[in-house]
């Protein structure tokens, strides 16, 4: 393919997304004009609010970090045509495992113990998702359902630990004891909560991109994702590629949870992962499963969320209105991405 036509194709894809974006912003503005008594301020806070000071900006970027990991987790699975609807539970249990390991080693070296706790989180996510892969390989159980069910069940177990044995009676939160300070990830944009995990997120995106496009494993994964019959015919071990993408996906989700504990919360907070798994799916859709595009897509998401928050704080907008405006943009963009994804499925000859 000639280089310029590839650019043109990319541009065409981006153009479609921009039109949708523009349209959804117009609708959002119209809604605000209709519902807010001080629409100009609301619009300003909603769209520009997150950029007005370092605190907001940093926090917005920090919200994007776990979404990058969950988005990558979903992209890896999608590229291999397997589905992981258990992201929530994998993030949540990853956070718990990290917390438990840090609490169990209160005096360990910050680096060693921190790494061990993240490894634990990844292993936990990997096992949970990989289990669904094994079930599919052995008995053909649909991973769409099993990932979701396992994740939901795990959610209750994590809740039990956070509100039971690990609950810190000294704080008023539904949260565990705090981990020791030597584990905290260094902040990089004070006074915001943004920390070095943002760097890890960018590295992870690059790593997943490299894995998918430049390695042997990535090639086999993508081939299985595009055409399983062809892959089997060509001598690829197709049953392994039901399990492996789920293991990777689960590990990335677990890591999202672990990093949230070390970087942002410093404890396991009840229900903090709410929505992260699902938003990861949306992020991956918008990014068309391209790992590099997952980063801006996650930031876009975080921006919507931060904007809604800022508008609530500084203007007359209620939580409901903010949520409506946020979801209008969200659904339009996701629908456009979904439509594109489905259309690309249709093979032309």
């Amino acid at each position: 393919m000639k280089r310029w036509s590839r650019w043109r194709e990319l541009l065409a894809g981006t153009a479609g997304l921009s039109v949708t974006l523009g349209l959804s912003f117009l609708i959002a503005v119209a809604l605000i004009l209709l519902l807010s008594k001080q629409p100009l301020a609301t619009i300003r806070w909603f769209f520009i609010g997150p950029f007005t000071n370092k605190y907001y900006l940093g926090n917005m970027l920090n919200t994007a970090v776990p979404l990058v990991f969950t988005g990558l987790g979903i992209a890896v699975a999608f590229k291999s045509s397997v589905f992981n609807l258990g992201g929530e539970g994998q993030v949540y249990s990853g956070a718990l495992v990290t917390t438990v390991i840090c609490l169990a080693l209160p005096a360990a070296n910050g680096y060693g113990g921190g790494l061990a706790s993240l490894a634990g989180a990844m292993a936990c996510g990997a096992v949970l998702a990989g289990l669904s892969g094994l079930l599919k390989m052995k008995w053909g159980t649909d991973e769409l359902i099993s990932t979701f069910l396992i994740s939901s069940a795990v959610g209750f177990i994590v809740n039990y630990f956070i509100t039971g044995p690990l609950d810190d009676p000294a704080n008023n939160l539904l949260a565990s004891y705090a981990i020791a300070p030597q584990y905290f990830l260094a902040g990089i944009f004070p006074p915001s909560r943004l920390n070095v995990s943002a760097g890890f997120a960018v590295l992870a995106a690059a790593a997943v991109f490299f894995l998918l496009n430049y390695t042997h494993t990535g090639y086999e994964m993508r081939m299985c994702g595009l055409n399983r019959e062809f892959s089997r015919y060509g001598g690829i071990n197709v049953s392994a590629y039901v399990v492996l993408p789920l293991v990777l996906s689960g590990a990335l989700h677990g890591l999202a949870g672990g990093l949230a504990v070390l970087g942002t919360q410093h404890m396991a907070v009840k229900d903090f992962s709410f929505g992260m798994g699902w938003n990861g799916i949306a992020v991956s859709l918008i990014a068309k499963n391209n790992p590099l595009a997952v980063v801006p897509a996650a930031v876009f998401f975080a921006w919507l969320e931060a904007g809604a928050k800022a508008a609530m704080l500084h203007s007359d907008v209620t939580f409901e209105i903010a949520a409506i405006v946020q979801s209008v943009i969200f659904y339009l963009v996701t629908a456009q991405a979904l439509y594109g994804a489905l259309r690309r499925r249709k093979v032309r000859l």
Partner: protein
Amino acid sequence: MAYLRMRGITKMYPENNVLANAEVDFEVRRNEIHALVGENGAGKSTLMKILYGLERPDRGGIELEGRPVHIGSPLEAGRLGIGMVHQHFRLIPDFTIAENVVLGVEPVRRGLFLDREKAQASVRAVIQEYGFSIDPSLRVRELTVGQMQVVEIIKILYRRAQLLILDEPTSVLTAQQIQKLFLTLRHLRDIGKTVIIITHKLGEVKEISERVTVMRAGRVVAVRDTAEVDERELSRLMVGKAASLQVRREPAARGRAVLELRQVCLLGRGQDHPLLDRVDLTVHAGELVGVAGVGGNGLAELEDVVSGLRRVSSGRILHDGQEITRLDARELRRRGLAYVPADRLHRGSSLTSSVMENMIIASHHRFLRGGVLRRRQAEGFASRLAERFSIEGDPRVPIGTLSGGNIQKVILARELASRTDFILFSEPTWGLDVASSEFIYERIMEIRGQGLAILLLSSNLDEILSLADTLVVMYRGRVVARLANSGAVSKELVGEYMLGLKEDRP
């Protein structure tokens, strides 16, 4: 006066900047059978897709019965009485024949539900009217490629099309089926329909068509009355030189037994007679065994079993004397099996992947360094293969954007280039133009000379008779004949075996 007139049709595919049609003028008279010929990638399918509303031309117009028409979709084409059978099937495997045929124009009950009985009855009526013999309640999954082709034709007949476009309908049919199809086409012409047929077999052009349009590199280079051209001239018009399908088969030394099937049985679910019934087959090094059979008699199953994609119910398969009965495709590849499948679009290639990625599916281990795929090397490999097999197009474009014949050439190139001692071909030249077929035959003879064991499954008897050392005929899952192809074997004799009129039982 022309019934259909396409004028100045120009079409550039933006994905790869290929000018598939350049200022094409194409005319068809009412009530004629018009052949459209040209090399692989000449732009025939593209022109027909434009006529059927599947592709939009950049420039040019279409007139039907003197009136300019706009054909924006297959639906509109259908309304204008235009129907098309595609080069590659578009059937839904899990639906029955009847359901596939009525898809989109279903008879409904109470305005909502598919009326299965009525659907079956009306499809059965069409089947009888045109003299086909196929049971409309069968699932398409269970059919052979030949039968699927028939279903595609029934599908447009069911829609009462006036203008029928058939893109390479004969490629997968046996000689008898082709004769039947031609009878049908003549009958259709006699009752007032018009037919456009694309084929690579010039004999068929002479046999069935009244006029012929020749395309080369996206342009129309000649329009002739068929009676006034001979095959040599046609082929000269197509490629600029005369090509003939002559294969020189030199006697080869037969070596050790490489592949052996012993009493192989395959039972189908819910079928009373086995799909493969105690099949014994041996292929030696340097030997080409050709298996002939009418669709539905076990060839497709033999393909699946030998390639390791389907487990036998009983019996043994040996490679170099070692048991390989339970090995899957992956392990067989490791042992040196190469395989060109009949189903090129789902099994043989991954349409949205690049030509390069398709080329290296079974050999990507060769391009690794520390787990990293060396793209440069792989692309270089793909380019060299593409050049050797004269496949047009950059190896980085999706293989689905190549013409049908070129997709097949990619598959053949890949399998012929893999380092093997045993190769299975199923319908290898289906969709290839004459020059490409000839090239492939030469390559097959070349690897035979190098001592490969070759198993060829084909519905093309000429192909088998000109290539095979040993000829095997299958009927109802059984081997009914095993003949040394001495040159004395006639098509008629093989035909009798194929139809079950004659049988040698060892």
